[in-house]
């Protein structure tokens, strides 16, 4: 038992020796440790109760699922220039231009087909950099889990729908949410009016 750590202590001076003995007699280190864990026990946890009760809303700079936008008059901004297709490193965007003079778009040339394969997409944001009319933007949607890969290809109709997160809501917050499981699939219903706190502050 020569190496027993409890027994061998190098007493450098009388004072440190006395302190060593007192420390062990009154369990000073134990009590310090217990106080640390008690503090944690009483502190609020940082667990995000997603998706049952809470959901994190990303910042505006977040690069999530694509959106196609309209101008203030409701005309499609996309002019089907196909620059996003050229810029895309994974070639996940397909654009087929179409002539249209009904005023659906901001010019006579609109996208007949505009679809993005989210399985291939790496969310680099080059398409929004390339877009001359700010038609394509990476939005704040991130719940794309699915059972069937075909539902990972989004077409123009879906992309043109307004985003779920209201545009005036700054990101980086946690809102109340509920989880819905039906035969058709799963959905997280977020209530954007009920803010539950700042994400960064909750991380301490």
């Amino acid at each position, binding site marked *: *038992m020569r190496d*027993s*750590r*409890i*027994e061998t202590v190098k007493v450098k001076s009388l004072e440190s020796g006395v302190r060593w003995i007192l420390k062990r007699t009154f*369990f000073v280190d*134990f009590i310090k*440790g*217990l106080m*640390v*864990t*008690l503090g*944690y*026990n*009483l*502190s609020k*946890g*940082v*667990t995000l*109760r997603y998706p049952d009760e809470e959901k994190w809303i990303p910042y505006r700079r977040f690069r999530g699922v694509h959106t196609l936008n309209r101008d203030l008059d409701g005309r499609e901004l996309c002019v089907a220039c196909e620059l996003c297709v050229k810029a895309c490193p994974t070639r996940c965007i397909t654009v087929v231009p179409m002539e249209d003079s009904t005023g659906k778009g901001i010019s006579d040339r609109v996208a007949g087909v505009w679809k993005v394969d989210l399985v291939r997409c790496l969310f680099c944001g080059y398409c929004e950099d390339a877009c001359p009319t700010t038609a394509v933007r990476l939005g704040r949607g991130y719940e794309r889990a699915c059972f069937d890969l075909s539902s990972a290809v989004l077409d123009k109709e879906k992309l043109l729908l307004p985003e779920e997160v209201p545009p005036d809501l700054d990101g980086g917050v946690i809102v109340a949410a509920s989880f819905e499981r039906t035969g058709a699939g799963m959905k997280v219903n977020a209530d954007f009016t009920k803010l539950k706190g700042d994400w960064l502050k909750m991380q301490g």
Partner: protein
Amino acid sequence: MFETTVEVIIICIKVGVAGMVLFSLPIPLTWVERKVAGHIQVRLGPFRVGPHGILQPVADMVKMLLKEDVIPTKADKWLFMLAPIMTMVPAFAVFVAIPVGDKFTLPFIGKDITLYMSDMNVAVVYILAVSGLSIYGIIFGGWASNSKYAVMGGLRSAAQMISYEVAMSFAAVGVVMLSNSLSLVEIVKSQSGGLFHWNFLYLPVGPVWFMIFFIAGLAEVNRIPFDLPEDEGSLAAGYHVEYSGMRFAFFMLAEYIAMVTISVLAVIFFLGGWDDPTGVIPLPPILWFVGKVAAFIYLFMWIRFTLPRYRYDQLMTIGWKILIPVSLVCVLVTGLMRI
């Protein structure tokens, strides 16, 4: 004749109630333990089954019941099946001698009912003897499994329990010297009258006896930091590594009940049992008792998620080189103080 029949019936009812409480106690305790663990580790703990995971132990129990009961081919089947029972029975038998309150009078009938099954005049000796028996189950479980991890867990447990049984008995000796009685009811009565009559505050030896008892108790019930017999890191699960299903649950049950026993004993020996520390708060004595025991159980869990496990040689060093010499000195000091 009539009197005797009534007494027998009352004792049967008490045994039934105590048995049911003890059997169901581990159910909330596992939940509390996991919640404490979760919150200390800044998690939530069980949360999915029922509100705040309150039904988690029920789900666990159903799972345990449905699990296959595996007995290894090379195991000693008879001992293997006997071992969980042998751990569990002494854990329950201890409670025959444990009082949870003094007595109360039944309304309308005017009959006094005591809140203990028997007020043995040698209760301390009985408890130390019977709780020492539960080690047989652990050793048999380890041995009968025919697995090297299990047998090592069993042997560690034997060494640990025998070493710390000595220190714990010394602590009991100290209490007996302070209270002049071996009966638990008398020990509690001798501490009545508020905080400063408690054995814990019988300065200077009270706190020392308390610490000796508490440390030895931690080791007796195989809790961290002395859970060498079921050291996950080096022995997988120790003596119950080969057990599954309900037999494993019996071991866990016995372990939780042993924890309750040590808490109850610490409260009776040192914290005045059902005595009200202030003397002014009008709470029923049994609530004081339950509250103190609950605080102790929390302390056990709190320590479990704070301290690391001791090494085997450190365990032996603490037992033989620190606790036992300190208790010998303490016996001397207590004796001098009681002259």
